[in-house]
């Protein structure tokens, strides 16, 4: 009798351990990673400008078509039929139009594109998240691929190769490279919205006409530019500042961030 009880107890313990471990995995919200605090040096603001970045959480992967579709199902005002042009232009989710079932299957794991800033923001907000700031994004993206050193030029090569390529058929999220923070495809897949994509349009003082930081322009005082070889950084900034909140672009997606630990 006693032995029987003993055995039941052990079985319960094993069941408990198994369930407990699996629960813990879920509870950690495997979709995000914690990015430790640090500094980001914008390439255009002079060598002594460091922008501090507080600890934050960032989605490991870009938001997929499948995930975005779930969001639209819960928020029909964000369907392409119902969305107002003030929130998203006429090409919003245009790649979803007339797609076959097999297209849909292939697309499902690929990053969602043709979404506006307002739409990306609404998606993140629906999950209690937000878009990352430029500083957060650039800081997180500057980490080298896993197993490579920060001094390695591999990152610049990945980016330069990617930027010079024609837009190709998409790949599933999480298939280009993982960086040392555990983030996938910060470069190499699609561009990503940031919260302050429009920040470059503001001047450093609020006295007069809008002035774009001079260091950005050819022929102007390029002394301000920290690293002239960071041409790819320049391209990102130029691209972002050409956007508007309701624009949608066929190689522009997003991932979400959070300031505090995400809920399970």
């Amino acid at each position, binding site marked *: 009798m*006693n032995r029987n*009880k*003993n055995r*039941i*107890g*052990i079985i*319960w*313990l094993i069941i*408990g*351990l198994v*369930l*407990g471990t699996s*629960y813990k995995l*879920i*509870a950690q919200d495997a979709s995000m990673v914690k990015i430790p605090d640090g500094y980001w040096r914008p390439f255009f603001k002079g060598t002594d400008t460091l922008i501090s970045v507080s600890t934050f959480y960032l989605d490991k992967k870009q938001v997929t078509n499948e995930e975005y579709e*779930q*969001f639209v199902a*819960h*928020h029909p*005002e*964000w369907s392409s039929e119902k969305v*107002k*042009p*003030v*929130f998203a232009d006429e090409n919003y989710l245009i790649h979803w139009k007339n797609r076959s079932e097999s297209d849909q299957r292939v697309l499902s794991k690929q990053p969602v594109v043709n979404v506006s*800033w*307002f739409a990306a*923001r*609404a998606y993140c*907000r*629906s*999950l*209690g998240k937000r878009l990352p700031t430029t500083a957060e994004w650039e800081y997180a993206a500057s980490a080298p691929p896993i197993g490579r050193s920060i001094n390695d030029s591999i990152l610049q090569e990945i980016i330069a190769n990617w930027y010079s390529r024609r837009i190709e058929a998409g790949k599933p999220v999480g298939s280009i490279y993982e960086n040392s923070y555990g983030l996938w495809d910060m470069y190499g897949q699609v561009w990503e919205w940031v*919260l*302050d994509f*429009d*920040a*470059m*349009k*503001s*001047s*450093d*003082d*609020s*006295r*007069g*006409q*809008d002035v774009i930081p001079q260091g950005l322009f050819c022929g102007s005082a390029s002394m301000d530019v920290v690293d002239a070889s960071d041409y790819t950084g320049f391209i990102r900034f130029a691209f972002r500042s050409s956007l*508007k*909140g*309701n624009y949608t672009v066929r190689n522009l997606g997003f991932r979400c961030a959070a300031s505090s630990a995400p*809920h*399970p």
Partner: protein
Amino acid sequence: MSKLIEIIAGIFLLYLTACQQNPAENQAHRHNVQEAHTVSETDELPGNSIYHFDYTWTDSHDQTVQLADFKGRPVVISMIYTHCGYACPMMIQDLKNIASEFDSNQTLPFELVLISFDHIRDTPERLHSYASAQQLSDQWHLLHGNADQIKDMAVALGISFEMSEDGDITHSNRKILLDKNGVVVYTVDGLSTPAIDFAQKIKTI
């Protein structure tokens, strides 16, 4: 010994039932409760009307306002903050100059809306004393909102801003004319810009 194991297993089980949640269910729930804005009875507005942003603001009289409340009249809209020492008073002067192009004995044929960048310091009370100090009439509407809605409006209006740690806000200086339906019809960047051109535009609406 067996008792001890049972107790441990029991506690473990209790902990599990207490904490176990279905993540899918949880997510769906969050989808449902966390909706902020975007749809209301504004369907008759043109698709590009900024009045589709149906956020609730608080004005300097502590009254709640939605931008769509201004529907039916032209609106001159801009963004400022009251701790701004130089650019914002100039912006207000620009707007006053525009207003002075109209008959001062009559109600202005348009409303002036100023959204504050500063959701922390620009409380409705602060906006009220600022409006008094600047001698702004009741046709001026100084609006306080939360950080999210301020950012959305700034992006919608093409006004960029950035808060620095010392409380200064770097921002662009743009005044925008909205037609009776909240559609942007005219935009002027910069300060000390000619009032007469702007007034002419208002008169064409």
